[in-house]
């Protein structure tokens, strides 16, 4: 192997509405189309909703500044030019979102939730990995979130 795992094709997103995205607190053993609007979305009332009779508490999460959420779907394998045997996995972007709602099962959302902590890592990482001369001018980070991250 040449150390390359996959390629992500950029730009061929069909410019639709940003995808409405929910991170559910359960494992749903299915991939594919389903009528989310009829069976879930209409139960949402502010930060509360119900799914299969279970009470959910949710919170909208805006992705950190400069970040975007992308949904990727694997394309059928395409043979790389030149060599017949080398196949790169290819993904194309099927949707984009800038915020999503995450739901807890009958539990208030807090800043200590793993999702929030994970996203807080983004800002910390930007400080750790800023090129030194740039960060000395202090133009690289916008301190607006809190706490240390759980990802490290």
């Amino acid at each position, binding site marked *: 192997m040449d150390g390359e*795992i996959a390629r992500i094709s950029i730009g061929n997103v069909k410019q639709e509405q940003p995808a409405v995205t929910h991170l559910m607190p359960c494992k*749903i053993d299915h991939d594919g189309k389903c009528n989310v609007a009829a069976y879930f979305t209409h139960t949402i009332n502010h930060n509360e909703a119900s799914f299969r009779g279970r009470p959910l508490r949710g919170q909208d999460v805006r992705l950190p500044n400069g970040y*975007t959420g992308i949904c990727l779907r694997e394309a059928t394998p395409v043979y790389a030019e030149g060599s017949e045997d080398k196949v790169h996995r290819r993904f194309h972007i099927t949707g984009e979102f800038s915020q999503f709602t995450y739901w807890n099962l009958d539990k208030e959302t807090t800043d200590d939730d793993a999702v929030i902590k994970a996203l807080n890592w983004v800002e910390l990482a930007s400080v750790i990995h800023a090129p030194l001369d740039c960060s000395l001018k202090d133009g690289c980070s916008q301190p607006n979130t809190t706490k240390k991250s759980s990802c490290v």
Partner: protein
Amino acid sequence: MACKNHINTQDESTRQKVFVVNEKAVSGKDGIEARVVKLRHPKTDQGAVYLFSPDGKIVSEVLQFKEPYRSWFIGDSVQSDGSFSLCTPVDPIFLILPYLIKSSQNGKFQLLDQVLMDDEFPQCCHLLNCSGISGLDMITDTKGDADLKAYRFNQDKCLEFLRQKVELTASHLKKTSVNVSAGSQAAVFVKTATEGEYKKYACDLIAAYLSVEFAKKLHSYLGTEDKTDVKKEILSSPEDQPPTKRIKMEKQCSEPTEDYSKTSGNTKTLSVGKMSRGQKVLSKVDKSGMKSLSSFFSPKVGAKK
């Protein structure tokens, strides 16, 4: 590339992956590609997943967020895999550092494309195109002009470079914690945290991108070693314990890690006389094939290396 992406959405898997990425890392014209590759992680020395932006200027680490019971609703579809991959740009210096240290062992100035050679992770040569590469001047001595520049790792410069990173990170930790608005734990964190604690924490964060050996050097350079470790060293006499972990690592795994025979003289006769009732019972049991309890707590050298 002239490859035609004949995408047939009906036939292929309906599975999707969710990535949260820096926009710059996936921006560009239609048809170009960001590349997901395996590179050597500077701390673990093992392969880890990274993302090169289409123009090759930004390298991001790909971290997986995964909770056991999570699924996505995306638009009008359901995704059973409720994880997402978080891609945050990394300073390429961290990824190049292990190669520089390795190549500096002969004390020669070398060109970067000679330094960045790795049979196991050949993609590392693309780190050369990253925009942060000019920062290498801060951790190396250089020779030659921009066209043909040779580098030699300079440990003192590198430690100073890392010190600045630690300071910046520490001041960021402090700044953001002051702005804490909610959460009792966070409030406690602000009250108890001292300058030293911020520094120590920042140093640990930076050390996550350094080899264990070099992280130790950084800790001692900054004076942020674990105080508990220092205490232990004071308490135990040097003969009881091997002086460093490295020596432990080099020993064979079958050997006991601590040698009590030297300190307690005639161990055999002593231990026979002092056996408790439980030990006596145990000595009658057939222990062949059983491991001693201490073996479970000794470092597994074979497995790691």
